């Protein structure tokens, strides 16, 4: 379809301001995977952010290097909602393979941008179409042929800028940030953006019913993905040893560590790293290494996802039972099995909590924002060393790999807690010690590090039965005493892990309990429910084991809707197990379709229950 013909069909029309949707709509960009659309999409996102508009970007991508359909959704929300939005208003249809489905997914009244050489059937009459001369504009830009495919995406950036009113100066500023000031790259991209804007100004006369307008809601805010935030937090927690094996969606967490560590952890005198990052041969080795490192006195961590977590099961039991501090980030994805590796889900809550054979249970931290990824990044080490145990941080793909806006991270508010470690002087002072004695009554023993220069420092670490002096035992009484102490230690953990955040309790008649990246959807759903005259209190659990506040919350409301992004309702199951007398009031609201939850789904699920 020729551009000119198209324009003669559709007469330009002025849309009344009250009919224009300003800063409250969702853009979906459909591209083939590997076509380099990430730069273009980040540019749009960042430009809107720079214009002060609350915005979130989510990458929905396949487990594939090149070719399969991928989508990037950008939600603008003047009210500051950050959850995935079910509705799609603006479609940039760059992928012929998914064009039909993409078009069907648009809301009535939506707009659709597509390359003008696309031979797709424009099957909907309730949508406004904007064909773009992508090939022509790219060709005219004079960019090197090898880069054409990548830079082609800048055409939709330019056309969107014109249609929606995204400021070109902010696009340039976003590109400047993206290319870290590399002028050549910025110029060649801006060249295409400017050409596309000029073309659109000259040729598009139809007004878009969706517009952006400058606000001041992102002032002082930062934008980052959860994996980078977790990595940064870990660096400020003093991580010194990292062992890992690549697995989506956790890889970018280690990539970020590899970015930040050389900047922040170099010995200025010798110009050498004061850390080590080892790419292991598999997850079995990765966790083995961090256990060895934690045992020897390093703050050590790994990052993985479901399949890797399964492989780490045996070693997790060893860390638990030998009481070695270390931190495992599990950036969760869809299971069972390989599942959908590039789709999000809170799928490992139960498996992480109880990981390994025998009677094991672990401290799990549940960040819900990039700010908490940062905070739990450093706090996890304090907890691991204080409790002398393996600590899991359960993030997920949505939180970890997508861009979120946030208040700036706070520098750690507490000094580093290295836990109960006896050095040579302390050993001389105490005279007598045993590795697994409960001296303080909190179940947490004292440890020494290998290489401590003292005749009494040494002890033998073993996953087999051991008594309080770390000697081998198969005696029932010693075995039970040790497990009793571990149980006491877990009760101590319960008193020092992050407590839940509870909101909206006034006039509430029901409770909603959730965790992690479900938070934005629930925050938005609370407002929607209130509009429907349902007042729900909301508790966001931030750690396992449950602190006393969780039990109190569950006891307070007759119906507790427990929102999970997994199939079985894993948090609901844990709650029923922990509070059997209250199990009847726990209603599982669980979804597992590979996508982040929406406020609409949460609202409707609760409404259904309340009907």
């Amino acid at each position, binding site marked *: 379809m020729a551009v000119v013909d198209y324009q003669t069909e559709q007469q330009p029309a002025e849309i009344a301001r009250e009919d224009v949707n300003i800063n409250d709509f969702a853009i979906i960009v459909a591209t083939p995977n590997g076509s380099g659309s990430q730069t273009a999409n980040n540019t749009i996102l960042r430009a809107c952010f720079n214009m002060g508009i609350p915005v979130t970007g989510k990458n929905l991508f396949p487990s594939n290097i090149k070719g399969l359909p991928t989508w990037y959704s950008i939600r603008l929300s003047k009210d500051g909602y950050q959850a995935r939005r079910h509705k799609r208003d603006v479609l940039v249809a760059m992928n012929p393979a998914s064009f039909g489905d993409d078009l069907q997914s648009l809301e009535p009244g939506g707009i659709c941008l597509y390359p003008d050489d696309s031979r797709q059937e424009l099957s909907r009459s309730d949508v406004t179409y904007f064909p773009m001369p992508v090939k022509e504009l790219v060709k005219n830009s004079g960019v090197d042929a090898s880069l054409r495919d990548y830079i082609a995406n800048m055409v939709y950036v330019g056309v969107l800028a014109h249609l929606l009113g995204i400021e070109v100066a902010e696009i340039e500023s976003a590109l400047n940030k993206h290319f870290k000031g590399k002028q050549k790259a910025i110029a060649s991209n801006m060249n295409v953006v400017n050409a596309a804007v000029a073309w659109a100004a000259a040729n598009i006369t139809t007004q878009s019913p969706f517009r952006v307008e400058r606000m001041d809601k992102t002032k002082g805010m930062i934008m980052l993905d959860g994996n980078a935030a977790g990595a940064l937090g870990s660096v400020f927690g003093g991580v010194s040893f990292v*062992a890992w094996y690549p697995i989506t969606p956790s890889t970018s967490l280690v990539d970020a560590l590899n970015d930040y560590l050389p900047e922040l952890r170099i010995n200025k005198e*010798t110009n050498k790293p004061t850390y080590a990052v080892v790419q292991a041969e598999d997850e079995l080795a990765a966790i083995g290494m961090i256990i060895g490192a934690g045992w020897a006195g390093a703050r050590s961590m790994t990052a993985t996802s479901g399949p890797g977590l399964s492989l780490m099961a045996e070693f997790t039991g060893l860390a638990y039972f030998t009481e070695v501090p270390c931190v495992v980030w599990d950036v969760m994805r869809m299971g069972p099995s390989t599942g959908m590796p590039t789709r999000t889900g809170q799928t490992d809550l139960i498996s992480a909590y109880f990981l390994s054979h025998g009677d094991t249970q672990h401290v799990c931290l549940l960040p819900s924002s990039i700010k908490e990824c940062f905070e739990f990044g450093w706090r996890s080490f304090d907890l691991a060393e204080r409790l002398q145990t393996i600590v899991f941080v359960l993030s997920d793909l949505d939180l970890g790999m997508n861009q979120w806006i946030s208040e700036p991270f706070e520098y750690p508010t507490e000094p580093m807690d290295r836990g109960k470690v006896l050095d040579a002087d302390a050993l001389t002072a105490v005279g007598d010690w045993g590795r697994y004695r409960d001296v303080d009554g909190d179940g947490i023993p004292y440890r020494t590090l290998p290489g401590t220069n003292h005749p009494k420092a*040494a002890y033998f670490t073993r996953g087999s039965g051991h008594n309080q002096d770390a000697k081998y035992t198969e005696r029932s009484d010693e075995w039970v005493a040790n497990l009793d102490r571990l149980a006491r230690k877990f009760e101590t953990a319960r008193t020092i892990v992050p407590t839940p955040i509870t909101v909206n309790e006034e006039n509430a008649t029901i409770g909603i309990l959730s965790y992690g990246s479900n938070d934005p959807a629930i925050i938005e759903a609370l407002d929607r429910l209130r509009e429907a005259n349902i007042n729900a209190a909301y508790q966001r659990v931030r750690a396992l084991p449950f602190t006393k506040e969780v039990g109190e919350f569950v006891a307070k409301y007759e119906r507790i809707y427990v929102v999970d992004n997994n199939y079985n309702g894993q948090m609901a199951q844990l709650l029923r197990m922990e509070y059997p007398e209250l199990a009847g009031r726990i209603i599982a609201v669980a979804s597992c379709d590979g996508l982040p939850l929406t406020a609409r789904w949460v609202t409707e699920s609760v409404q259904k229950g309340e009907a």
Partner: protein
Amino acid sequence: MATTKATPKPKINLLGFEQGEYKGAPSTLCPGCGHDSISSRIVSVCFELGVQPYQVAKFSGIGCSSKTPAYFLGRSHGFNSVHGRMPSVATGAIVTNRNLVGLAVSGDGDTGSIGMGQFKHLVRRNVPMVYIVENNGVYGLTKGQFSATADIGQKLKYAGLNELPPIDLCAEAIIGGATFVARSFAGDPRQVEALLKAALSHRGLAILDIISPCVTFNNHEDSTKSYAYGKEHEERLHDMTFIRAQEEITVDYEEGEAIPVKMHDGSTIVLKKLETDYDPTNRVAALSRLDAARENQEFITGLIYVKQDNNRTIHDLLHMDEQPLSHLSAEQLRPTKEALDSVLADLY
């Protein structure tokens, strides 16, 4: 075999420790087990060399052999980890504290089967430590299954006939890039001691594959991993003398009769040739000699391969600072608030 003169052992060593201070808990292995003999060798060698016991970290996996670190060097930290995956634990610990003297004990099941992957990667990373495989060709704790190092045609009461070819851990180590690879026999204590001393002086990973008979399950007459077989068939490639850095070389040998190998710490091993033309610094020759031994079912022992130049350990490969990670102060661990502000400045 040439050795230093048999003088009575001094009561205390260079560091002022008595030999008893290098002992561990009483062994719970079967009386006569080859592993106990190796533990004794470790005790006497560490005593003789004056190894600082507080700086030693012992590592093991799972199995009879992996129990032994409890039976020597009781003043040293030890970590008895999981089956076959001790190399990763040791890697983490040694990378964290480069001052530690790593001493690892594994078995043929632990290394040759479940731990083969980690073994190969340990070699590849050249984690500086001594790695002993106490190799008896059989799974003892589970009552007598073949391990992957059992020779073809071997018979066991429980497992019957072995028809699978054996894995040669020395060959695997050399192919993987190891820079110190030795094979010995628990029934040849003097050689074991000489090799242990050399291994402790090596810069990088030192692999010792020591045939260590299982008296309960695999010590019958027709077993190639028995005491009797070892004593009868052991073919030493050379007589070894270990000479400490500060000692004078007093071993007599004619030019061409022996190879003196200078170790990283200044000590020397003099390898007096028993087998003409065997050169343990030649990697390809070492592999072909191992292959010939396999072909002819020869039980060769000695320092099979050694390389002293340009050995880059994992600390070198990671370009690490000299200060151990375990010794960093809170100030060194946590970057400043200004550093955080500067990172955040890019995110607005």
